[in-house]
């Protein structure tokens, strides 16, 4: 390289042309001469003052720095003012007058609210959060007074409040008018307020989800989730509605207990989003079982539950009757509740990155952690692209650690559920509590879409684990990709419940209020069998329980799995029965059927049906039997004489069937359901029933009835 570069030096420059040379030289000389001449002339100017007119000389001092500083100061004042004005205008109101209204409203409303709160403690959270916002706004408007006097200002009588907060400065000229116009202002202010907080439930929910657990009110305030209708990939197994069966040919009806509530939440979410729910997503028995009913319960632990049977007229058909079976499980006193070993198996796949999924899930688990006893243990396994253990089994005593682990969950990746399930079961095994509750709680928005996960294989795994004492519960989240069928299968095979969580209120209900029922089973493999007396009943139809039907011979077979009942669980089953000789009988008599008279002699007269319940103690493998005959003594002559809980559950049944498109109730209007339910609303401490009424109204509007 050096050689090459050195060649540059050996390059011989061509001789400059003489012409150019002389030209350059003469130019150089010329410039040299010019420069010499110029050098004599002085450079720059002498100190003499520039000539200018007297006006300029007077004007220039005015433009000096002092005054410029003044205008700069003015700008400093104008810019924040303009910014404030812009902000207020973009919020959609005029700043000055509305400001006064705001304060008056806040002052008055604060008083009103204080009173109102005394009267109705379960007032929706929305109000108070709205008030909080109003307070914040006062704080913004009046920075000077806000810090010290905000509380006083809002609760003082209104003129005092105004004086204290110094609003007079802003509206001093208008004071007298303002006083006169107060009533008008109030109206206007209320309107402002209404427009401003047009969507309070949403606001409330957001703050609930984002905020701390302590802030959450146990009110299932309905949440308007107006999501865009998008392609729906939710999967539900479609099952035909139970047909009307003739007692003569098929006198026995057998089904398994179902305490799930997922269907109701899903229906609610659908209706709230402005869509009629998918028919297959409606499981009537889950809707009925969603509501707490006050069925009489058993007195001791030896008899885990008690059945109450009522026969009442059918609201939607004058010629049939309803046989209503209400079952209440024994309520385990919290002190005697066994230790719990819970493994949260959490889906953190990319699809969980939505406000109603992972964030809601986190809040839900925080609620559950708060509910558990100090010696209970919790572990967390996540699954996405690959499964990972986030938290080894940790006692609730170290709550901070658990909550921190929940907080770190981040969505991302696809779903490898089978692997996650395995990891979760391993952890559950690791912290196994003998005689306690060992449960994997699976939270997901969809299915297990990666890995060896045929539904059958999963089922087999879960069954195997169930036998070793580890149960599985399923919490469903989100909408659009929900695999209801799989979730049901998993929970049913894992001796657990499937709940669908669409709002934090729902999480509160299913994880906190009903934690006992879903966590502490008091009986497993609960089966029902009803035998109808052909002498009294011509036909019957089981409402709901389509996915829970069992074969008649399986009732006595202890190897056949069935539903579980937890502490304090309520199960309600309703049959629509057609009495013998009623005009509503659908099936003709059998020409070659045996004469009913022969049987009537055998049975005690007046008995309508015979209810048998078979169950196993949680730690036992042999079943026990409870039997109850249903006689005319169980019957009530009119609907009104049935208890309000019964009437309400019947209303829910009617609604569920209507959403499912069942023929029997097609002539029964939503309006009638509404009346029936409204009259049976009862105390409704948590507002579940009020919410149901809203759903019926929504369905009526959406269904165009």
């Amino acid at each position, binding site marked *: 390289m050096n050689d090459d570069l050195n060649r*540059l030096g050996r*390059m011989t420059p061509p001789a*400059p*042309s003489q012409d*150019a040379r002389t030209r350059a*030289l003469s*130019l150089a*000389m010329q410039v040299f001469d010019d420069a010499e001449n110029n050098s004599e002339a002085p450079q720059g100017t002498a100190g003499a003052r520039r000539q200018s007119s007297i006006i300029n000389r007077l004007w220039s001092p005015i433009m000096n720095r002092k005054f410029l500083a003044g205008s700069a100061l003015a700008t400093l004042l104008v810019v924040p003012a303009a910014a404030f004005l812009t902000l207020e205008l973009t919020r959609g109101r005029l700043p000055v007058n509305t400001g006064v209204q705001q304060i008056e409203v806040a002052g008055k409303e604060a008083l009103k609210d204080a009173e109102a709160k005394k009267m109705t403690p379960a007032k929706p959270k929305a109000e108070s959060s709205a008030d909080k916002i109003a307070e914040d706004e006062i704080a913004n408007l009046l920075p000077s007074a806000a810090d010290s006097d905000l509380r006083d200002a809002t609760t003082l009588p209104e003129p005092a409040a105004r004086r204290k907060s110094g609003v007079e400065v802003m509206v001093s000229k208008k004071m007298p008018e303002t006083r006169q116009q107060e009533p008008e202002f109030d109206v206007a202010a209320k309107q402002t307020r209404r427009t401003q907080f047009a969507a309070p439930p949403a606001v409330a929910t957001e703050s609930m989800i984002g905020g701390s657990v302590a802030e959450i009110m146990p009110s299932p305030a309905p949440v308007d989730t107006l999501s865009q209708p998008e392609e729906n990939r939710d999967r539900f197994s479609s099952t035909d509605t139970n047909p009307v069966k003739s007692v003569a040919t098929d006198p026995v009806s057998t089904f398994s207990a179902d305490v799930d509530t997922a269907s109701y939440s899903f229906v609610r979410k659908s209706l709230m989003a402005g869509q009629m729910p998918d028919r297959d997503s409606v499981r009537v028995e889950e809707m009925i079982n969603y509501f707490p009913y006050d069925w009489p319960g058993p007195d001791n632990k030896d008899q885990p539950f008690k059945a109450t049977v009522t026969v009442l007229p059918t609201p939607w058909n004058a010629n049939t009757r309803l046989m209503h079976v209400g079952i209440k499980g024994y309520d385990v006193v919290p002190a005697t509740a066994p230790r719990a070993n819970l493994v949260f198996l959490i889906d953190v796949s990319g699809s969980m990155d939505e406000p109603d999924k992972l964030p809601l899930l986190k809040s839900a688990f925080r609620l559950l952690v708060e509910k558990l006893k100090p010696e209970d243990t919790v572990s967390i396994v996540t699954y996405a692209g690959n499964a990972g253990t986030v938290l080894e089994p940790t006692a609730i005593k170290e709550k901070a650690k658990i909550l921190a682990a929940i907080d770190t969950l981040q969505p991302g990746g696809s779903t490898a559920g089978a692997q996650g399930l395995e990891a979760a079961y391993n952890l559950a095994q690791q912290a196994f509590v003998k005689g306690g509750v060992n449960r994997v709680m699976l939270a997901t928005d969809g299915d297990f879409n990666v890995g060896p996960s045929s539904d059958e294989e999963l089922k087999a795994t879960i069954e195997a684990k169930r036998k070793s004492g580890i149960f599985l519960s399923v919490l469903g989240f989100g909408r659009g990709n929900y695999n209801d069928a799989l979730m049901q299968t998993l929970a049913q095979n894992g001796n657990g419940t499937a709940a669908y969580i669409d709002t934090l209120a729902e999480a509160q209900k299913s994880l906190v209020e009903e934690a006992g029922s879903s966590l502490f089973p008091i009986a497993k493999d609960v089966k029902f069998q009803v035998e109808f007396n052909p002498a009294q009943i011509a036909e019957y139809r089981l409402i709901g329980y389509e996915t829970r039907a069992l074969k008649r011979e399986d009732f006595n077979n202890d190897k056949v799995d069935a539903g579980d009942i937890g502490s304090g669980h309520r199960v309600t089953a309703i049959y629509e029965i057609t009495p013998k000789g009623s005009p509503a009988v659908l099936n003709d008599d059998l020409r070659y059927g045996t004469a009913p008279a022969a049987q009537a002699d055998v049975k005690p007269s007046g008995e309508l049906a015979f209810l048998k319940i078979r169950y196993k103690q949680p730690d036992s493998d042999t079943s026990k039997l409870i039997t109850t005959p249903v006689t005319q003594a169980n019957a009530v002559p009119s609907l009104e004489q049935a208890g309000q809980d019964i009437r309400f559950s019947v209303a829910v049944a009617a609604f569920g069937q209507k959403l499912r498109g069942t023929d029997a109730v097609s002539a029964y209007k939503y309006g009638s359901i509404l009346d029936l339910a409204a009259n049976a609303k009862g105390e409704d401490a948590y507002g579940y029933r009020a919410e149901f009424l809203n759903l019926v109204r929504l369905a009526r509007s959406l269904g165009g009835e």
Partner: protein
Amino acid sequence: MDEDLIERAQQGDRNAFGLLVERHYDFVHSVAWRWSGNVSDAEDIAQTVCLKLGQAIRAFRGASRFRTWLYTLTLNAARDHRRSQSRERRNAASFLADPTSTAANDNRDQAEALWEAVRQLPDKQGDAVLLVYGEGLSHSAAADVMGCSEATVSWHVHEARKRLKILLGRETM
């Protein structure tokens, strides 16, 4: 000899100045030629340098470094020239598809590829290479001309060589 002439020129002796310019014209021209690569550009540059001399000779201090000063003047003039030329070429590009710059290169027989490559270098690196290899100056002398430290010159040369290797591709450099 130069010192004498400069002193007299600075005092206004135009004959002395004429003599001085005449003596150094060839040097300036050859440097300019190395920088620009063709005769007509070199003449233009040399003329610019002569004008500069005429304007600035009186302000020049440090007679012993006259040649260094000439280098500096020439380098700057050459750079200015190149810039104005590329400006013109850019303007002309809208009218002429193919600029004639390659045809005007008189240096085809002498290491043309290397020449082209050096002229593509960034200003400082090109200057350093030409001063060190073309003019045969030491790094410290080149540093004087370029108004920077010796180490900087070495660095420029080093960078230039790295770059030349890339520019000339597979050719053995």
